[in-house]
């Protein structure tokens, strides 16, 4: 009996991330599959079966959409909150989609105020000037308002980038990511371009990419065999035949 990919993944105790890594299918596509929004393509079905150690026919190609969260009207009634104003009785007839009266936001947290002051200081704005700009003392700010003003200053920081005392750059930041290679592999996989791999020991392999992770690349050789290459063993690779 075929099962949904989500059920199988959970049985195997895998996160979406891990399954994406194993199968070479993007997380976004996996989520679409799990929600039943997309039917799993035959090639992805093969990859998922391999990654989950099941047969292809064990996977339901179109997952059952997960049950929608219960709508508010269907939820069991809760006892009224003590903070709810008494002039709004619970049994009041409601129009469909009637908006609730906005709740009063609690006073801003100390950390929000401190953050706001720090951000303002970057623009040489002291507390008095900040309060003048906001139009009220900081002590009267609500959490919502503090969030709004913090967001505003964060955007200003991002846009203006005020000069610092020392122009200290963190050099060579791309080292923190491995996105370029993965994007390249994704492109070659989608175009089904055969790649030619040279390993440390001089061995060579050729095939189209069927899946990859930060540590491995699985290719299908012209004869149909699939080979998983450990990236630590690879010296370099390029499109086969020297095509651009």
């Amino acid at each position, binding site marked *: 009996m075929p099962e949904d990919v989500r059920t199988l993944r959970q049985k195997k105790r895998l996160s979406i991330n891990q399954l994406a890594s194993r199968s070479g299918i993007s997380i976004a596509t996996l989520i679409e599959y799990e929600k039943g929004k997309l039917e799993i393509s035959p090639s992805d079905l093969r990859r998922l079966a391999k990654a989950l150690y099941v047969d292809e026919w064990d996977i339901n190609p179109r997952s059952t959409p997960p049950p929608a969260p219960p709508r508010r009207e269907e939820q069991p009634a809760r006892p009224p909150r003590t903070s709810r104003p008494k002039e709004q009785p619970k049994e009041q007839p409601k129009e469909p989609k009637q908006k609730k009266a906005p709740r009063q936001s609690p006073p801003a947290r100390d950390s929000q105020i401190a953050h706001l002051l720090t951000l303002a200081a970057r623009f040489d704005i002291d507390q008095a000037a900040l309060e003048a700009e906001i139009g009220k003392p900081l002590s009267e700010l609500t959490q919502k308002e503090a969030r709004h003003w913090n967001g505003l200053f964060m955007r200003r920081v991002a846009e203006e980038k005020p000069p610092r005392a020392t122009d200290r750059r963190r050099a060579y930041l791309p*080292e923190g990511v491995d996105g370029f290679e993965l994007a*390249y592999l994704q492109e070659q996989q989608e175009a089904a371009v055969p790649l030619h791999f040279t390993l440390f020991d001089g061995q060579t392999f050729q095939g189209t990419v069927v899946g990859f992770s930060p540590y491995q690349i699985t290719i299908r050789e012209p004869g149909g065999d699939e080979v998983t290459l450990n990236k630590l063993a690879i010296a370099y690779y390029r499109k086969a035949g020297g095509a651009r």
Partner: protein
Amino acid sequence: MSLGDELRYLRAFHGGGNLQEIEDEIGLEPGTLRYMEQRYRRIGEDDELLARIAVHYGVPVERLQFHRERYRKALSAYLHHAQESGAMVRCELRTGETLTGKVRWWDLGAFGLDPDEGGSLTVVQRHSVLDWPMTNDQ
């Protein structure tokens, strides 16, 4: 190739032993090898320590000292400057080959090289680069 990559290579070449076991055999503080294998910055200043590791793996200590100078950040700097200036890079690989070309992109694990003789982009795994022209600012 950085000292970290070289140590990983040597460990794999000698059967892929467990880091903790190797540290015990050499008599290193726990975590020393793990730290050395994973660092991006220059490491391995202690020549006596390098000598003990070299003896364990049966290689000359000069080999480890050579890789000490070729730390990952230094390769990053080389690739970065070459990409910015559009200069050619020249990399000697562990396979014995030498690749030259212009850097199209580079990241944590690899870099894309447009070969100077033309042809398709070559994706070079950073750990396969044995040597490159070193300059004073690296």
